[in-house]
């Protein structure tokens, strides 16, 4: 069977070679990179602009962003027909291609996040080494000690001057990270925006739209996950369990349930405010795009209008704008915001952004280059071949779950909830 045939249904006049070639993985690709970029921007709000109120969640967002990072690669690899050759992108980068810059931007960004985390946690790492060296070690602790020793890179100086230098470095890296994160995602939008053969994607607004919705989704995910992990911590605290909270394994943190709850509510409220700001920008830009297309109505508008107002009406106006944008917007706006409501709103926002990616990627391929036919995409749910697994529900779930697994392990080394007096 030809690639794409398994999930494409053709209607009216579609060219013989046309299929929905970019399927769910390419929907997830900008979604995942968006989450990475968004989480990082959130953490930088505190580090760069000194938004003190976001202190707690900023550290979490940073570690989480790092956990998400490798996952941004995954969908790209999964959808390649020749995944083993992925490295060719680095060996013969072809700079007229938007994708080819990906490796470079991605690596740069990865380095920035990694070094920022390193500076943020340097004091903790050194202290952990000292603490573990002193005590009687049990199994896992020896391993931890070894890991800490390696990642400390031998920099064991935690004098006030050294720490001061760390702060400067963090601020610089966070500042540098913002444009790079935006670039990382802006150019994910550029990949689409520069496909001149596609009438829906072909707009210079695409990168900006992508950046804004990226920040929105990243913040929403942070709010949600922060709440979930806080809830887990409280649950574990009450029962004296420690496997969710390595900082307690390390014995560096004593905190009561009530304190935790306070912190959680406060951080969620503060973050929601920023979420609202970015949501307004994102929605405005997207609506502007549609209105502009309708107003200027070039040749392709005929078929675009059919896709937007007929074929994808439910997906665009009900699911994306209605349930994914308007509803959570109202929920966040109403006074007396509780954590629960903020979480619910965040889930809707995340869903809305996913739908936006879906409508751009799949919707962009919904009409034929002949401008006379349509293609419907049916997500393969039950896989009967590697291809239908990779580009079906299974592959999508795999991508969605991975960051949490990574975060779980990363959290053991860099406890995201660890806090101390001069935490950053």
């Amino acid at each position, binding site marked *: *069977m*030809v*690639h*794409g*045939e398994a999930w494409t*249904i*053709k*209607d*009216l*006049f*579609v*060219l*013989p*070679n*046309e*299929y929905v*070639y*970019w399927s769910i993985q390419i929907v997830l690709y900008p979604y995942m990179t968006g989450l990475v970029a968004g989480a990082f921007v959130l953490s930088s709000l505190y580090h760069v602009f000194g938004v003190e109120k976001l202190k707690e969640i900023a550290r979490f967002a940073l570690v989480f962003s790092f956990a998400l990072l490798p996952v941004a690669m995954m969908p*790209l690899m999964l*959808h*390649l*027909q*020749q*995944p083993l*050759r*992925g490295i*060719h*992108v680095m*060996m*013969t*980068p*072809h700079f*007229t*291609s*938007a*994708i*080819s810059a*990906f490796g470079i931007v991605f690596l740069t960004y990865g380095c920035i996040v990694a070094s920022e985390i390193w500076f943020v946690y340097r004091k903790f790492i050194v202290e952990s080494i000292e603490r573990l060296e002193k005590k009687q070690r049990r199994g896992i602790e020896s391993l931890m000690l070894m890991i800490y020793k390696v990642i400390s890179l031998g920099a064991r100086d935690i004098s006030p001057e050294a720490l001061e230098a760390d702060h400067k470095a963090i601020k610089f890296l966070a500042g540098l990270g913002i444009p790079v994160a935006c670039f990382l995602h802006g150019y994910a939008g550029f*990949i689409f925006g*520069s*496909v*001149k*053969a*596609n009438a829906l994607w072909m707009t210079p607004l695409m990168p900006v739209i992508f950046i804004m919705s990226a920040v929105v989704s990243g913040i929403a995910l942070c709010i949600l996950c922060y709440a979930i992990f806080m809830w887990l911590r409280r649950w574990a605290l009450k029962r004296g369990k420690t496997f969710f909270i390595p900082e307690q394994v390390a014995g560096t943190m004593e905190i009561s349930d009530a304190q935790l709850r306070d912190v959680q509510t406060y951080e969620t409220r503060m973050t929601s405010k920023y979420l609202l700001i970015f949501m307004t920008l994102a929605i405005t830009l997207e609506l502007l795009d549609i209105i502009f297309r309708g107003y200027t109505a070039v040749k392709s508008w005929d078929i675009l209008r059919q896709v937007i107002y007929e074929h994808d009406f439910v997906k665009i106006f009900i699911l994306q704008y209605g349930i994914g944008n308007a509803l959570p917007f109202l929920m966040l706006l109403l006074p007396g915001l509780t954590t629960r409501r903020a979480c619910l709103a965040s889930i809707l926002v995340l869903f809305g952004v996913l739908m936006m990616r879906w409508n751009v990627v799949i919707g962009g*391929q919904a009409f*034929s*280059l*002949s*401008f*006379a*036919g349509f293609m*419907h995409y049916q997500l393969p749910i039950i896989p009967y071949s590697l291809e239908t697994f990779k580009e079906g529900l299974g592959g999508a779930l795999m991508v969605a779950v991975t960051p949490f697994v990574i975060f779980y392990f990363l959290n053991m080394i860099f406890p995201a909830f660890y806090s101390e007096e001069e935490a950053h």
Partner: protein
Amino acid sequence: MKRRDFLKNTAVFITGASVSLSALELVDPKEVLASRPDLRWGFLVDTYKCVGCGMCVKACKLENDIPYDANVTRTWVERYVIMKSGEVVKDSPKGARDGFTSKLVDQGESGPRLLRDKEIAQGFFVPKLCNHCTLPACVQVCPVGATYSTADGVVLVDRKWCIGCGYCIMGCPYGVRFFHPVVHTADKCTFCYHRITKGGNTACAQACPFGARRIGNLRDPNDPVAKEVLNGRVGILRDEYGTKPNVYYIGLNKEVH
């Protein structure tokens, strides 16, 4: 390309240090072709002559190892039926591999549609293939340079280097590209490069019983195709994308794009 050649050269050099130096000299295709700046392949399609028999599609599939029953094809023929009401109905079932033998027009999911003879204003056939653009969108977007233009104006895909990202497929405004169902890399018409560089004709042009398809050298003023392209009234498809195609059409209607 250069970088890859460099890597290749280096690898060859290191492993083959004991081989005599002359054996190491790699032939640079660009250099060979630069010695023939008088060559530029162009293709001419005469829509007045095409009857939609599908011989070209069949011949192409067989010549170029595109699985016969796979629903992709390097070249295809479109049928246009223009109704008196102004409505344009088009189809190309299986790329017209088996020719148009029925009055039923294939409308995909919506099912076949029967058009009444007396409502039809005109009908014609338009063969399509890769346009071997002078400014190819596919070459521009390929992240690894697996798609490239040769100096004599043919756009080719390096099957050993293509990573199968599908960017070129999305980038081509003509929808001529697809993934080869067997080798799983991007594929498309090559103007039968393996034949024309040896002085042969393309499989489709050879198979066409009516001479609707012809290939020629646009730089040779005595070439019949070049003469027609330079002096006749010919059109190209989707000029607005700025890809500057090298496939020219005689008798192009505004309904075709």
